[in-house]
């Protein structure tokens, strides 16, 4: 019995697992949410930081100046949190530039070492978005310092293979996904 458990555990970690890609509606919704956050709360909080800076320049009282500096620091912390949330909803470089730079940016933010193998011809908008979110979401589950290889093939039927090795000599793991795109 113990041998069977060991065998199942071994094959469970070495056989490729399947990842569930986000559907088209989810990808579109996530794009919209990040934009709302960026153009709404983040933009208004950045404007608030400017206003605090303006008030600070007109104040002569040391105590008030210190309190304004504290408030500005808190605003900066809030923006840092908004940045993290926004990046997880829809990575900004993926939104503005594309799949390769977008995934490199997410990997960098997570402290991962990425080897990326993409098709020679650029994917369509839907495939780029859904594939990018699928891989970026998986990156969020990996420990910093992990080495991760991502291979993407196909155009309408996109096949994704992610191999990762977490630091500390762990067994490499493989994940796969197939996306049917319009």
């Amino acid at each position, binding site marked *: 019995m113990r041998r069977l458990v060991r065998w199942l555990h071994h094959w469970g970690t070495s056989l490729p697992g399947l990842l569930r890609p986000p559907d088209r509606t989810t990808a579109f919704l996530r794009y919209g949410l990040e934009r709302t956050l960026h153009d709404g709360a983040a933009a208004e909080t950045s404007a608030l930081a400017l206003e605090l800076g*303006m008030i600070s320049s007109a104040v002569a009282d040391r105590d008030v100046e210190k309190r304004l500096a504290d408030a500005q620091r808190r605003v900066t912390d809030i923006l840092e949190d908004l940045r993290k949330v926004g990046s997880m909803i829809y990575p900004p470089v993926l939104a503005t530039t594309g799949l390769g730079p977008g995934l490199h940016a997410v990997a960098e933010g997570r402290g991962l070492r990425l080897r990326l193998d993409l098709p020679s011809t650029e994917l369509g908008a839907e495939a780029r978005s859904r594939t990018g979110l699928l891989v970026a979401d998986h990156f969020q589950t990996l420990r910093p310092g992990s080495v991760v290889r991502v291979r993407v093939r196909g155009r309408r039927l996109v096949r994704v293979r992610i191999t990762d090795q977490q630091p500390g000599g762990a067994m490499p793991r493989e994940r796969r996904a197939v996306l049917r795109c319009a």
Partner: protein
Amino acid sequence: MRVAIAEDGALFREGLVLLLEAAGHEVAGCFADGDALIAAVATDPVDVAILDIRMPPGPDGGLTTAERVRALRPDTGILLLSHYAETHYLTRVLEIGAERIGYRLKERIAGVRVLGDTLDRISAGEIVIEPALAQRLVRGGASQDGSPLASLSERETDVLRLMAEGRANNAIAGELFISAKAVEKHIAAIFTKLGLPGDATVHHRRVLAVLAYLQARRIDGSGG
């Protein structure tokens, strides 16, 4: 200093105008997209153009507008602002130019002094990089196993971080309370330890070499 702004967020745009005026600068024009700024700068040159990266035209219109400003008016300084500090945007910024250019987080220039310092440095021909991004690049590179960055002393790491922000020798010396001669010595040691090519005495080449090295290390660990 005469400044033009292109930013699609009305609140931030208005706040920036007030802050620039409080800092004693003249706002020559204020626009909601890059095309309008280009049309204005073509007839009325400014010292520095401040551009939001994520604004029309296109998803990263600030970057394409910056390219057009640089082609149209090579002497105009460019400050790109963003809600995000990303090395991808930094790479794009450095492709546009290695002099009279800067990339900073929006909320980090929210003070008369810091905004004035950023614009002065750009106007003087320097590259200005968001300190939070420079720090992330240095830390990330140093945390990798076997990285030559780990062999740098604490002082050398501080100097490297300030170099990655685009700081000149005198500014680094002032920040760390050491002499300019000591800064030169640390920079020579950093270049030797990291095996960086190029002339460490030419400011912008030195900054580019350091940033290229750090970006390569951070992204796939293959740099150096």
